[in-house]
Every structure is written in C-alpha cells, then in structure tokens.
C-alpha cells in the first residue's frame, strides 16, 4: 500500500507526539514513585536511630514469673530516649510502661502476670515504633544463680546432722574456753552476795532477728542460774512480741532449777518500742534497782554504749554479746567481758553443755575450714585473672 508524503508527515508528527506523551508519562510515573518513596520514608519507616534497632524480649530467668526483659541493640545515639509501651496480646491498646535512656542495655518490666501474653512497643520521638514478638513470663522451679549457695547450705546441714548424731552417740567434743560465758556464773554469784538483782537485756530487735532468738535461749540458762542462786532477774524488753517468749524462757529456767515459786512475772517488763525511750527505761532500772550484774545479749545499736556506760557507773559486772559488728567496739570498751559475733550463738551450747548443741558448734568449725579453703582458692583465682570462680558465688 502506497503512503502519500502528506500522510507520512502527519504520521511522523503523530508518532513524535506519542513518544513525547510516553516519555512524559514515564517521567511523571518515575517522579511520583520517588515522591512516594520520600513520603513513605518520612512517615512509615522508623527513625534513622531505630531503623537498625533490633528489639528482643525474653522471660527473666530464675524468678517467679512476674517479669520480662526487653533488650535492644543497634545504632543508637547518646541522649536518645525510648518510650516503652505494653499491651496484652492480641489487644493493641498499648499503655506506657517507662521512658528509658536508649543507651541502656535493656529494661526489666516487673509486676506482670504469668497468664497474660504481652507485646511491647518501643517508640522514639516522632512516633516511630518497633514492635516485639508476643511473649509470656514464666516461673522458674529453681533459682539457678543460687545453686552453689544451695550446695554449700546442704553440705552444712548434713555436717550439722552428722555431728549431732556423733554427739548423741557419746562422742565428746572440745570447745574452747569462752571467758565471757565462764564469767556469767561469777557475775550472778556476785549479785547474790550483794543482794541485788541481775539485769538481762535481750537487745532491741524483734524475734525476726536471729540474735534475739539466740538471746532468748541464753536467757533460759541465765534464768536457771539466777534461780539456783535465788537471785531476782529483771528482763526489760523493747519489742512486745519478745515479751511472751522472754516470760516462757525465764519461767522455764526457774523450773529447770527446781525453783518455780521464785518466778516473778513482773520482772519481764515491756518498756517501749522506741529505741531511746527503752534506753532511758533500762538506765532507770540500773540506777534505781542497783543491778549488780548486767548482761546484754542480742542485737544492739546506738544505745549499746549508753547502756554499758551507765552500767559501768553503777559498778555492775557487765557481760555483753552481739553480732552487730559496729557495736562490738563499744561493748569491748565499756564491759568487763564481750562475746564477739559467733560466740553469741555458741553461748547456749556452751552453757547447757548439751551434746546435741555442742555438735552444731563442731559443724560450724568444719564450715569455717571449708570457707577458709574457698577464700584462699578465690584469692588465688582472682590474682590469676580467673573470674569465673568468684562468679560461681554471686547470687542474684
């Protein structure tokens, strides 16, 4: 088919026009795509700081299933802060939990429920976010960080039981002389000669302190001695919960001495829960009743020296025992005899001479040897740069 020149010119013009339109449309499409990318990057992609951040959630190990651990890593700058929000999955209503420094290694969310699955949102300024995977906290059956402690405690328990068994079988154990405890009878004897009462102060802590419990046990033995000498014993008490236990201990001591009729319930006296009101009350007893032997056994604080110096001024024989190391120098300075730390706990076995109780002292000695060996090994390991040994004994 023949094409006329005029027709060919028109066709060429049309073709050029068509190419221009195509090019224009291509250009517009490309430009639109670039615009879309810019818009998407601005409003839908996380900030440069969070773009490369990875958020991980995990159950906190060795706990009761009430905490989750959030960790993030990536290119984070100094001064950035992250808003952490939490939702109960599949609910998407996030509530803020904390705002933290982005440079922190992580965050532990506590007070959670084991029955709920949680999802976390970490948000930077501008509303840009990273979501976590759904996660639930779970409870551990064993705190693995305390395994070494458990093993040591179990060994100690076993050694106590072995020595108690040996003691019950008639084995005799050597117990070193404790001057303060030997002086106890001498002090009570002196009070008897002077016709004055004995004062026994069981510290100012409650029965949840093991020192107060140890003091109650010693009180029973001291009460037995005072009863056998027919000397009154006055026991001022700082915590009301200690009153019935002290009454029972004194009553039992008098019964063990075969003199229950000498027991005077008015001599176990609750004074005050307040530290210095109690101190004033005890000082008053010392000064008014002229106690000849003052025995302080238990947990003491700032009142220790006030009591001991007042007792010194009255001329009483004073025997003190505490495991509070910050008060020991005061007792050592102001009292005639002082039981230091573990001697307070050994007093009951020492005074009663009961084989079973003496067995526990022996077990403590064995434990001390083991601890000394471990300390020496730890010193050597740390000196050689082997930190793993010390970490074994670090409990969470």
């Amino acid at each position, binding site marked *: 088919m023949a094409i006329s020149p005029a027709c060919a010119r028109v066709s060429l013009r049309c073709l050029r026009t068509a190419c221009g339109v195509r090019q224009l449309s291509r250009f517009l499409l490309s430009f639109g795509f670039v615009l879309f990318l810019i818009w998407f990057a601005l409003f839908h992609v996380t900030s440069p700081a969070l773009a490369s951040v990875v958020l991980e959630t995990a159950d906190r190990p*060795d*706990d009761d*299933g009430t905490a989750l651990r959030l960790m993030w890593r990536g290119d984070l700058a100094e001064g950035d802060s992250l808003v952490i929000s939490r939702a109960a999955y599949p609910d998407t209503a996030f509530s803020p939990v904390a705002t933290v420094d982005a440079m922190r290694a992580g965050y532990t969310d506590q007070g959670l429920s*084991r029955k709920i699955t949680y999802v976390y949102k970490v948000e930077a300024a501008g509303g840009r976010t990273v979501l976590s995977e759904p996660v639930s906290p779970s*409870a*551990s*059956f*064993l*705190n693995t960080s*305390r395994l070494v*402690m*458990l093993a040591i*405690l179990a060994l*100690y328990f076993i050694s*106590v039981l072995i020595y108690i068994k040996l003691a019950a079988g008639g084995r005799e154990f050597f117990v070193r002389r404790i001057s303060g405890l030997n002086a106890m009878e001498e002090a009570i004897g002196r009070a008897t000669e002077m016709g004055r009462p004995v004062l026994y102060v069981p510290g100012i802590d409650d029965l949840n302190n*093991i020192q107060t*419990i140890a003091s109650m*046990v010693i009180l*029973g*033995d001291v009460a037995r001695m005072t009863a056998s000498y027919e000397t009154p014993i006055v026991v001022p008490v700082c*915590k*009301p*919960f200690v*009153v019935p*236990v002290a009454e*029972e201990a004194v*009553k*039992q001591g008098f019964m063990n001495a075969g003199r229950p009729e000498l027991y005077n319930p*008015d001599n*176990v*006296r*609750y004074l005050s*829960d*307040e*530290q*210095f*009101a109690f*101190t004033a009350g005890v000082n008053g007893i010392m000064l*008014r009743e002229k106690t000849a032997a003052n025995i302080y056994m238990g947990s003491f604080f*700032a009142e220790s*020296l*006030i009591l*001991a*110096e007042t007792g010194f001024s009255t001329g009483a024989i004073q025997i003190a025992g505490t*495991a509070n*190391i910050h008060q020991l120098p005061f007792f050592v*300075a*102001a009292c005639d005899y002082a039981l230091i*730390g*573990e001697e*307070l*706990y050994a007093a*009951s076995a020492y005074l009663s001479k009961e084989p079973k*109780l003496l067995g*526990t002292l022996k*077990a*403590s000695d064995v*434990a*001390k040897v083991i*601890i000394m060996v471990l300390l020496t090994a730890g010193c050597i390991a740390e000196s050689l740069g082997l930190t793993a040994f010390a970490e074994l004994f670090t409990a969470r």
Partner: protein
Amino acid sequence: MRTEIPVAIAFVAGMLMVVSLFVPHPFIAEPAAVMRSWAIIITAFAYVLGVANIARISLHTVKKRTTDWQYKGALVVALVAMAGVGVSRGIQTGGLFDWAYLNMYVPMQATMFSLLAFFIASAAYRAFRARSVEATLLLVVAVVVMLGRVPVGEKLWPGLPAFTEWIMEVPNMAAKRGIMIGAALGAISTGLKMILGIERSYLGSD
C-alpha cells in the same frame, strides 16, 4: 504434745522459708509471702500483750506505793493520754498527737542520744589506756586513724590519710569480715537448731 506441735509448726514454717530462697515458683513463693504477712499481723497483735504487760506492772507498783512509784504513775498517765489523744483526735500531721510527739518525745529522745557523745569520750579514755600490749596497739592505731581523718594529720604527713584508709580497708575490714562469716554460720546453725527442734528451750515447759 505441748512442744511437739510447736516444733512441727516451726519445722514446716522454717523449711518453707529456706526452700523459698531457692525455689522462686509461686507454689512455694506465694505461701511464703502469705506467712510473712501473718508475721506482720501477729506482731501487731503482740502490742496488746506489750501494753497489758506495762499497764499491769506499772499499776501494780503505783498501787503498792513501792520505791519510785511516781515514775510509774507518770508513765501510765502518759500512756493513757497519748493513746486517748491518738484515738480521739487522730494522728495526722499538725494535730495534738503530732504536736506532743514532736515537742515532747523527740526532744527527750534527742537528749538521750546526745549522751552518747560524752559516753564515747569516757569509754575511749578507759579503752585506750596502755595497760597491755593489745591496749597499746589499740591506742596507737586509734591515734593514727583519728589523725588521718582530720586536716592536721595531712599537714603532719601527706601520706597519713592514705595510710588511715589502708588500715580501715585492709586489716580492719579483714577482721570485720572474719567476725561476719563466723556470726553468719552461727546464725545458720541457730536457725537449723530451731527448725529441727534440737533447741526447744524457747518453747517453755512441757
């Protein structure tokens, strides 16, 4: 039975507390937490025993007019007055109870505490007398430490503060830790004796 049942209760409660230290799971942790709450409640009730004890002994002394009965009388009056004000007017800040506490009790407490300064001086005087080798050593070390902690010590010898710190951080700390380890073992064995019922004198008579 009077001692067996309390020993059994002590064993169960004690072992629960020991196990809860190593087993964080709620089947152990929750009963242990409940038991700790019970302890708080029981302690609160024990105040009734304390008040009964103090009232009984003080009233007995006042009634019999024994030596210094007036002090006991003042104690009973103060006890009743403070309790009465607290119950009738409340213990809110700025109230009468709060006023009495801040203007009467707190100054008296501060007076007692301030006695400590004088007692420290008198006890230190006795303790630091060089009567034996140990007391002399104590005296010398105490003087060095005291000098090392005041500006004049540094004037005397610039190395004295550092030497004082070394005394406190090395030999002193070593002795303290030794006492603490011994006391901790004693505390564990006392607890064990209670839990296992080996030590039961605190339970009173059979």
